[in-house]
């Protein structure tokens, strides 16, 4: 018997999770379509004027990002919890925090990354100036992983409960507020041609904090849920 290294095990889990996420080609489109649909809702509900849309554009992109990440959260650990896979992972020789981190990364790759890539397109639809594009992408690239990491703690805490959906949102959304504020602020500043390093640095700081402490908290929460 030769226990696989953390990297090997992590890679296997990553591949599995992405494969499960995209088992059918059609599903590749889901987060994208969801994001687009949510973005469509705003011009429908408010009035579709260029100026207004420009003003609320960054906010909408961020809200859509947050929501589509929260919406997918419920399934992050729930299914592994329900079918016993989580038990097996907790009993494997790999550190649970590492496995959960990998799962979170996979979740981000499936639900967050498409959004980062698609953001410029939505920005176009909201008539945001081209120079704000890179900042929007950068802020989303720094912010959405943090959303997933924070979300993963919430998902772990509620994994043992039946109806987690709204509860996760309740735990996660308040914690995600700062990210939203600074993310949208960065894009706003870029639209006015101002310096954006401040908010971006802050987003990076939060991301690394979440990256190093999040999985440990999540692992502890999962062990409690399994008890």
């Amino acid at each position: 018997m030769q226990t696989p290294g953390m990297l090997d095990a992590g890679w296997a889990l990553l591949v599995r999770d992405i494969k499960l996420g995209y088992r059918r080609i059609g599903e590749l489109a889901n987060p994208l379509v969801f994001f687009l649909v949510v973005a469509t809702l705003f011009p429908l509900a408010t009035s579709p004027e260029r100026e207004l849309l420009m003003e609320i554009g960054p906010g909408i992109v961020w809200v859509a990002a947050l929501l589509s990440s929260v919406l997918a959260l419920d399934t992050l650990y729930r299914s592994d919890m329900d079918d016993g896979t989580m038990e097996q992972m907790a009993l494997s020789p790999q550190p649970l925090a590492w496995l959960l981190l990998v799962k979170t990364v996979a979740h981000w790759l499936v639900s967050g990354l498409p959004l980062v890539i698609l953001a410029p397109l939505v920005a176009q639809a909201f008539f945001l100036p081209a120079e704000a594009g890179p900042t929007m992408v950068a802020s989303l690239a720094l912010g959405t992983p943090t959303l997933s990491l924070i979300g993963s703690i919430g998902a772990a805490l509620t994994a043992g409960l039946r109806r987690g959906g709204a509860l996760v949102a309740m735990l996660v959304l308040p914690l995600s507020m700062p990210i939203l504020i600074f993310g949208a602020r960065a894009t706003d500043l870029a639209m006015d041609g101002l310096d954006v390093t401040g908010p971006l640095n802050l987003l990076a700081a939060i991301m690394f904090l979440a990256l190093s402490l999040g999985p440990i908290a999540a692992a502890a929460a999962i062990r409690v849920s399994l008890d």
Partner: protein
Amino acid sequence: MWTWFHKLSSPPHFYRLSGTMIPWFGWLAAALIIPSLYAGLALAPADYQQGDGFRIIYVHVPSAMLSLFVYMFMATAAAIGMIWRMKLAHAVAVACAPIGASFTFLALATGSIWGKPMWGTWWAWDARLTAELILLFLYLGYMGLRAAIDDTNRADRASAILALVGVVNVPIVHYSVTWWNSLHQASTLLKKGGPSIPPDMAIPLYGMILGFLCFFGAVSLTRVKREVLVREQNSKWVKDMVTSK
């Protein structure tokens, strides 16, 4: 009539029949589309207001009409499949969805391209345009739902329900221009008191619409044929056919 219906619904019979019909539809489509397109783009006079810009009508209108027609066709097939538990009808519905989505996309795209010079905007949140966009989302939802269910039988029935629920959107697309003061023009061809378009402009348009219909017939039958083959892969007639080749 009833026996004909039954006979048609038997997969091997349908398979053979569609095999002979596809070329007919295909050639008919070509024979209609090519001359109509030529007539529309070169022979028809320019419009008194829009000049040559109006010629995009020859793609926009057929694809827009087909987007609605295909949806109704698909929903009807789905309903038949649900009520009489006829698998072939489900196969037809499945085969139609991507085609309908493509027509919808084409209508949206050509509409936008047309809208930019004529209206001065690519897009407005007008009733007709929004409803057509919802139609696209419905097609996508239909395909997404199918993709998410691995058992064909269940996927058939679940997506059929969705298709039927979505039917409410079709009259909204069609009548939006009469119900609301929309930016989109009202109906030209189906206008009360006859079409308000002269024959030399209209005939190529009718030709294009019929051509698109035949094209739809050919493509959908091809897709249904393949779908039937996949679904019946374990049945005797398919195995016989494969071995005899």
